[in-house]
């Protein structure tokens, strides 16, 4: 306090002593350095002004006047266009010409609201806590030459422990599946070994041998249940390995896909059937006979829940449970399709076939984007959340970057050699990890940049407690999407239905059981008394019935007769002319 008092008293004196520049503010500096700003010219001018006004300011301060500080960045902070684009939902709705006032107001206000929501969501991106992983080689070092051991050594211990091998040579080769939260791993060996593991803590949840061939394994909506496609039937077990159901309606299942928002387990069988099991009520929703033979290539489109099946004749067909025919059938390969996968936005599909080609398709337009030739061909494909493609070529797993796009595939981003044939490939959601099931067991491989760094805890939370999981399960079941809503465009419901009048009328007729607009056929009354009998009325009516049509017919008949007349006259004249012979000119 003692130090402060004299300062207050001799304030003018201090002012004179400190004839320094005012402390530099960060914005002044940026104005100097930032050359790209359009206000640059103005900025320097303002700068000069600032310098000149320093004295005035100090004077003003002395006089105790309120100094108006100008905001150096007026208005709200700009949002990068790309970020805004990410949250754009559909096209902006324009007010149609001739719209009524109320409609106009409604459209304008709803557009303003959605724009605000979009901006706020885009701004929120700044607050996301995690960044995606990456791997960069030194100069003239290929990233695909970096071994997993090197990566595991270079990163921290927790991340390093994500590279591990499970040596299970007895019951291999293995299929695998990660749960939706990415914490739980399910592996199933061809010879009957099934195990589920909390792979991050390496905690074995259950392990058993079903004493039968295991074709595929799949987690259901939570880590409490999983489905195993065994030699004959489909079985459902809980996380302790207890058999809950044996679904005998589903036989000879080869591949399974779980549609989490619909609670549907889609299975493809050796007999050519595609079946849908609603796991919330335990009912078979649809069974489609594809008539395409053995179905052992299957994938789902996470964007619209359409099932993609690959066939031995090189076609890929797209299915929904509402239709007995495929939604789309596309010829992708010369030779059988070996594997296929779809990216999370539902834009791209990657397929590989026996012709040893890897093809990328745009499945909104159903057009091939590019293809490349892999010498060994790819037996398994998988796309990560980050857009990395992994392909199992023989006993090597190759990871490609920037596959989804127009640029063709060049060299792999990463590669890893394993022992034995690769049977299953899956990226772990929200982690930089690729799980590989092969003949000698299971390998978890670190692939930096594969996972989505920031999860949404209301949707999938890897750190959720059991209470949270229960809450989530109830909510998810409440908003279970009905299987009828599966189609190529999931946003169809929000669009204006411009069904034609005819179609609407047809629906109405179907709903009512009769046609409300149809005219009743005349039924003559059986009238006994009176002169004017119903029959006479009917006869009289018939005389004047269809007056308009009669008029029209009369008119057309008249026109036609006139036309004929004219033509006749013309032809007569022609005839007259045509009767002249060449010798007539010699006539006198």
């Amino acid at each position, binding site marked *: 306090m003692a130090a402060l008092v004299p300062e207050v008293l001799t304030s003018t004196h201090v002012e004179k002593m400190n004839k320094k520049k005012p402390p530099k503010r960060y914005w002044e500096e940026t104005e100097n350095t930032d050359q790209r700003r359009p206000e640059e010219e103005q900025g320097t001018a303002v700068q000069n002004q600032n310098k000149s006004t320093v004295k005035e300011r100090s004077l003003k301060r002395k006089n105790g006047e309120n100094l108006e500080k100008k905001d150096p960045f007026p208005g709200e902070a700009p949002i990068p266009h790309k970020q805004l684009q990410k*949250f754009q939902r559909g096209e902006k709705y324009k007010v149609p010409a001739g719209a009524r006032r109320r409609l106009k107001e409604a459209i304008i206000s709803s557009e303003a609201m959605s724009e605000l929501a979009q901006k706020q969501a885009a701004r929120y991106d700044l607050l996301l806590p995690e960044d995606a992983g990456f791997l960069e080689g030194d100069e003239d070092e290929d990233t695909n030459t970096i071994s997993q051991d090197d990566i595991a050594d270079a990163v921290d211990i927790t991340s390093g422990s994500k590279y591990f091998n499970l040596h299970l040579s007895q019951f291999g080769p293995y299929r695998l599946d990660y749960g939706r939260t990415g914490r739980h791993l399910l592996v199933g060996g061809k010879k009957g070994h099934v195990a589920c593991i909390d792979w991050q803590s390496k905690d074995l949840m259950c392990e058993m041998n079903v004493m039968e061939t295991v074709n595929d394994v799949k987690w259901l909506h939570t880590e409490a249940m999983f489905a195993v496609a065994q030699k004959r039937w489909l079985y459902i077990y809980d996380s302790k390995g207890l058999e809950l159901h044996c679904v005998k309606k589903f036989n000879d299942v080869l591949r399974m896909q779980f549609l989490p*928002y619909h609670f549907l387990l889609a299975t493809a069988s050796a007999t050519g059937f595609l079946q849908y099991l609603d796991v919330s009520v335990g009912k078979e929703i649809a069974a489609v006979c594809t008539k395409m033979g053995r179905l052992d290539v299957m994938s789902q489109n996470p964007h619209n829940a359409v099932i993609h099946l690959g066939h031995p004749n090189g076609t890929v067909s797209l299915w929904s449970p509402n239709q007995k025919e495929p939604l789309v059938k596309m010829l992708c390969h010369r030779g059988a399709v070996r594997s296929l996968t779809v990216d999370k936005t539902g834009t791209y599909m990657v397929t590989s076939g026996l012709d040893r080609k890897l093809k990328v398709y745009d499945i909104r337009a159903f057009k091939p984007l590019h293809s490349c030739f892999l010498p060994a061909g790819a037996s398994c494909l998988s796309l990560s959340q980050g857009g990395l493609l992994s392909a199992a070529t023989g006993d090597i797993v190759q990871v490609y970057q920037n596959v989804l796009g127009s640029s063709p595939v060049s060299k792999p981003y990463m590669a890893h050699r394993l022992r034995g044939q690769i049977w299953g490939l899956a990226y772990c959601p929200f982690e930089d990890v690729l799980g590989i099931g092969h003949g000698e067991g299971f390998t978890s491989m670190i692939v930096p940049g594969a996972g989505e760094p920031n999860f949404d805890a209301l*949707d999938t939370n890897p750190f959720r407690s059991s209470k949270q999981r229960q809450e989530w399960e109830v909510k998810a079941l409440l908003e279970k999407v009905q299987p009828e809503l599966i189609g190529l465009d999931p946003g169809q419901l929000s669009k204006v239905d411009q069904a034609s009048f005819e179609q609407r009328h047809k629906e109405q007729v179907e709903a009512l059981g009769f046609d409300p607009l149809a005219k009743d056929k005349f039924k003559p009354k059986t009238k006994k008394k009176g002169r004017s009998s119903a029959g006479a009325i009917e006869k009289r009516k018939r005389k004047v019935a269809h007056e308009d049509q009669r008029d029209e017919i009369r008119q057309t008949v008249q026109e036609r007769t006139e036309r004929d007349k004219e033509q006749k006259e013309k032809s007569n004249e022609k005839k007259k002319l045509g009767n002249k012979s060449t010798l007539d000119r010699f006539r006198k």
Partner: protein
Amino acid sequence: MKVKVLCRNPDDYVRETTRDIQRVPRNYDPTLHPFEVPREYTRALNATKLERVFAKPFVASLDGHRDGISCITKHAKSLSTVISGACDGEVKLWNLPRQECLRTVQAHEGFVRGICSRFCGTSFFTVGDDKTIKQWNLEAPGYGVREEPINTILGKAVFTGIDHHQRESTFVTCGQTVDIWDEQRSSPIRSFSWGVDSFSCVRYNPVETELLASCASDRSIVLYDTRESAPLRKVIMQLRSNTLCWNPMEAYYFTCANEDYNLYTYDIRHLDVPVTVHMDHVSAVLDVDYSPTGREFVSASFDKTIRIFPKDKGHSREVYHTKRMQHVICVRWSADNKYVLSGSDEMNIRLWKANASEKLGLLSTREKAAAHYNKKLIEKFQHHPQVRRIARHRHLPGDILKQKREQREMKEARRRREQNVRKHSKPGSVPLLTEKEKHVAAVVE
């Protein structure tokens, strides 16, 4: 080699102690939330179903009257007090939260035709079949003291309705004429008549307080300005209007309850055509009252139902009925916009929720937010056939349903007949009239 691998510290994502709330990091990236529209639609469908499940509008029945209820009025100041009059001349004061009768007054001999409370909330007026106007204190007399009116005015003819001025000590009654009274005098300071023998209802405009509207038995609705000597204008309709009510927010609109089963909203600036025709009742409409927000009104009908109409819609959004409720004579919307009171022939006053599925009592913030979200969802998907079907469905008693069908058929037949007449007459001689134009006979200045 530069490498970074995703590695999350669980401390950043898990709550610190069990007393803490759970951490919920969000990421609004649309690719992490597939099936946005179908999920929202499912939610909207669920919300619609739940709204119907929770639609239990009946709150309480106030019984105690010994004859049919003829009129109800709200207390001017207190939300919890309601005054009702019955056909045996009894007037009762009710406490709504406790659902009990506070006081009973034998006010008149014969019907109590009208009640209105004074704007200050200290007294109320009643008119009855015994040709008297009585002013009563709203506070109960002391123990052992007889119930006596403060003031009694003996009129020449039967009064059928009464309404009090918003700010001044004048009131208006109707009977054979429309009379304006000063509270201090025993004879009317002014009386209006326009060639009719009786009026059924008279109401002061809540905003333009010198303006009056009344329903007369010669099928007309007459407007008056108390500052002028003669009535302003009248509109004559096809059938008689029973009561009318001013819109408290847009006081240039009023709605009248008509004998032809419809309600008509008029703009006093353009009386020649009603703004809206509200149809749904299947019998004469007996009473109407606006909500204090002026966006909706409730109507009581002889068909034993009450209906709630949005002010600008032609059809009702809600219908209330019970097995025991008979012809509803009077209806009022409470001043807090939450409840509707109906008085009916079988001696009961019923308390209904204005919004059938609303939860009563204190709501937590999350409950409020959820209710708000559900409302918005239903609004967004209201035109989807499934949602609309569920949201629109109302159970109706069998006889009302039957009458409704019958009337639809009759209407259709009338339309067809008119069409046929038009087809077979000289073009232009049978003009096309809209529903609005049909019901007005004339406007007299």
